């Protein structure tokens, strides 16, 4: 206490301390600005690489990966007739193992009628209502998760490649803007954690780079399979931001940006995450 008081009594030293503090803040600002860049391709890593040995083993072995329970149900749904048209997905698309190979890696994709990108779940529902004349499936319902998991499974190992052209560019830009926009009561942007602080810890767990390589995926925390939108809404809630409803354009644009950001990375659906 005595030493401290003496230190503060000296006005010159106090001035120096303030200067040093200002310099440190300034430097920190620069470092922050330098960090806020996109992750270089060589440094990109799937969430898989941030997991422990046991969770990786669980994902790799299809007989222990709980996501396969949804994939198997999805296969049954693929071949089941539905709706007023009394047609199954397989009646038009045939064997999904051939016809759907690599498809999930290209979503969200531009839809000519809606004139905007749609994600895999929306595409499945569009097929159901337009072709099968069946009721659309609710987001995060078992059936929709099962079908999307089954489709995504057919693209396991396929590099992610969403089509960015004149039609989709502005949606990509909107997604990028969302990713970098500070929001919520904590005033955080997605980039604050996933571009700048990946590899560090948040409440004891590693912060991944937010590459959507394994969706829909089985999250041990959820005790269930879930879509990318569920994960995004989850993250937004954590930031104390208002999460847009399932299927909203804002979430699809963000999905598009994240898939573009992960371009070239291999799809590993159905993944397992802690």
């Amino acid at each position, binding site marked *: 206490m005595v030493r401290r008081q003496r230190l503060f009594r000296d006005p010159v030293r106090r001035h120096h301390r303030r200067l040093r503090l200002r310099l440190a803040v300034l430097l920190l600002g620069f470092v922050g600005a330098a960090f806020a860049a996109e992750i270089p391709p060589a440094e990109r890593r799937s969430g898989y690489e941030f997991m422990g040995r046991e969770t990786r083993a*669980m994902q790799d072995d299809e*007989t*222990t990966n*709980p996501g*396969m*329970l949804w994939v*198997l149900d999805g296969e*049954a749904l693929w071949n089941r007739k539905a709706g007023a048209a009394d047609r199954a997905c397989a009646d038009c698309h045939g064997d999904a193992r051939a016809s759907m190979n690599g498809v999930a890696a290209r979503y969200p994709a531009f839809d000519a009628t809606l004139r905007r990108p749609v994600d895999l779940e929306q595409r499945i529902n569009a097929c159901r209502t337009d072709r099968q004349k069946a009721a659309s499936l609710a987001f995060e319902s078992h059936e929709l998760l099962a079908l999307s998991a089954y489709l995504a499974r057919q693209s396991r190992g396929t590099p992610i490649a969403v089509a960015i052209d004149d039609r989709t560019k502005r949606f990509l830009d909107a997604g990028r803007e969302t990713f970098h926009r500070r929001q919520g009561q904590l005033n955080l942007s997605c980039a604050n954690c996933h571009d700048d602080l990946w590899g560090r810890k948040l409440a004891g767990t590693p912060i991944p780079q937010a590459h959507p390589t394994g969706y829909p995926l089985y999250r*041990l925390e959820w*005790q269930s399979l879930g879509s990318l939108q569920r994960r995004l809404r989850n993250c937004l809630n954590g930031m104390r931001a208002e999460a847009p409803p399932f299927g909203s354009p804002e979430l699809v644009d963000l999905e598009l940006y994240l898939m573009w950001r992960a371009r070239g990375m291999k799809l590993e659906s159905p993944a397992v995450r802690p």
Partner: protein
Amino acid sequence: MARVVVNVPASAKRGELIEIKTLAAHTMETGFRRTQLGELIPRDIIRSFVCAYNGEEIFRAGLHPAIAANPLLVFTAVATESGTITFTWSGDNGYSATQSAAITVV
């Protein structure tokens, strides 16, 4: 859909230790959780799992409310003879699932 997945090696040497993996789709609702309106969600769990090798019980497990959804059970057995390994899960609300796998012992 009472979906189950089992993994038994298709063949093994006599006396060899084999690893058996089983996965059952189940919510394993604990019975302790409440809805947002405060109503108790009734318990809905798998209560028991039995594995039989050519009709003889070789492994049994009792399951309880603290066990995670979609329980994964991995255990070992000694390959004694060719035949069928059957798996039976049973639980609350009349839940029941069976699956079998063939094994050739040489």
